């Protein structure tokens, strides 16, 4: 569960990136976050990961108040959250297998269980034959699937994706979105930031629209991509 209460975030210079955000996402939901460039979507994601601290307000994730969390508790907290970025952020000097295994090594899983788990997620994202390839030998869609496998390998209860299809063509975008939907069907809460109107309109999910640091609409299942409305505002 994700809960934000009157959250503000102001970077050192300029206007607030988030201004009075209150939001509740239940366990097992699939949520799109849309909005124009600079509306504060990435900032919101970073707050949920405790990569940034809010200037004001309260954030709870998985029943834990991030403001009260000690520094040394942060790693364990993050292990419950999978994260996917627009630019994949794979390690270029490691092959597919090692990129995914890395996420398990980082949390000090024993090698034996890593060897069992990595092929499972690779199959889940449909990349089991490519486990030896290096990132530069893969298409964008494939790289994003590796990144997704890495996010899933530790069995997170929440998956955050910041423009996961931003660098992909429509076909690959759809494949990634379908995978995210599958992940969600297995019980993981999924929050997807996207600019992809076609997909948002087709997938019939909850849609939160942001503009200039505020939530301007929050539609339950069957939401539509309205972000463009606010361009002129």
């Amino acid at each position: 569960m994700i809960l934000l209460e009157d959250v503000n975030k102001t970077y050192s210079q300029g206007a607030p990136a988030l201004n009075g955000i209150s939001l509740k996402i239940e366990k097992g939901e699939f949520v799109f976050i849309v909005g124009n460039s600079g509306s504060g979507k990435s900032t919101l994601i970073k707050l949920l990961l405790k990569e940034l601290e809010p200037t004001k307000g309260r954030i709870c994730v998985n029943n834990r108040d991030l403001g009260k969390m000690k520094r040394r508790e942060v790693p364990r907290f993050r292990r419950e959250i999978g994260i996917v970025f627009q630019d994949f952020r794979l390690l270029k000097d490691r092959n597919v297998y090692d990129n995914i295994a890395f996420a398990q090594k980082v949390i000090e899983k024993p090698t034996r269980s890593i060897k069992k788990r990595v092929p499972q997620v690779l199959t889940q994202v449909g990349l089991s034959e490519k486990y030896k390839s290096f990132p530069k030998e893969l298409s964008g869609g494939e790289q994003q699937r590796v990144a997704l496998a890495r996010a899933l390998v530790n069995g997170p209860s929440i998956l955050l994706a910041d423009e996961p299809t931003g660098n992909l063509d429509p076909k690959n975008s759809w494949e990634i979105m379908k995978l995210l939907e599958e992940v969600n069907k297995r019980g993981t809460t999924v929050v997807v930031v996207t600019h992809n109107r076609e997909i948002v309109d087709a997938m019939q999910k909850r849609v939160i629209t942001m503009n200039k640091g505020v939530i301007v609409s929050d539609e339950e299942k069957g939401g539509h991509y309205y972000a463009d409305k606010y361009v002129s505002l």
Partner: protein
Amino acid sequence: MRISTLAYSIRQGLKNIRRNKLFSIASIGTIAACVFLLGIFYAIVTNFTHIVDNAEEQITITVFFTNGNTEEYKAEHEAIGEQILANPDVADIKYTSSQEAWDEYKGVYFGEREELAEGFGDDNPLANSASYTVYLKDIDKQSEVVAFLKGLDGIRDVNYSESTAETLSDFGKLAGYISVGIIIILLAVGIFLISNTIMIGISVRKEEIGIMKLIGATDYFVRSPFVVEGVLIGLVGATIPLVLLYFIYEKIIGYVMSQFSTLQSFIDFLPTNQIFKIMIPIGLLIGAGIGFIGSKISIRKHLRV
């Protein structure tokens, strides 16, 4: 720590070193120089201390009595002996009776030709010359002890050689201060270079570190490869000069001895094994220590995790 995590840290540490060859070699070189000089200083200082200790053992104070005849004043001499021994700076005393003094004199001056002494018959020309030889715990305390002895009742004369004692101990101190100074400077340079090497490793892996943090790596897990890197560099840097020193130590001693053969009579160098029994662990510890501190500094400065 899990074995697999330790293995990971070592593998990453080695990878960092390989990736960053030039700086790693520079750091290894500096540490090698540092430990090499340290080793040389250590060898010189321990040998010097050893020589000074030997020399100091020979520096003694001789005390003569107002009433110096053993046969008549034995009890008085023993009483004075107890007073001297009670002084905390005195290590030991040795009594030389009038007869022993004369025997020794004969031995030194007449040698084999005992007949020369026969003229004296049973008379002991040194009948009044019983003495105590006083051994000191610390050569620095000589003047205090001399003053103490002169102040005792029943003492006629106190013989000592001030100049040797003070020159030796002053020289020892000076050598100590200079080597400590140079060693500190070298340590600082070593730490500085290692921390720079690690800093480059950190900056090269910035992206990877960022990803690690986001997927829940502990600070400890993120840092340990860099600590391993520093310690490995330190250990390699220390091993090279230790091996080198081990093989050249004996050669150098041999060389010094043959070049300055006059030294042989009063200088006695420590054997290789005795020196290295201590120098190897110290050298490795210092190498690893420089690496550890250097990496810690760099991590603290550049790895705000």
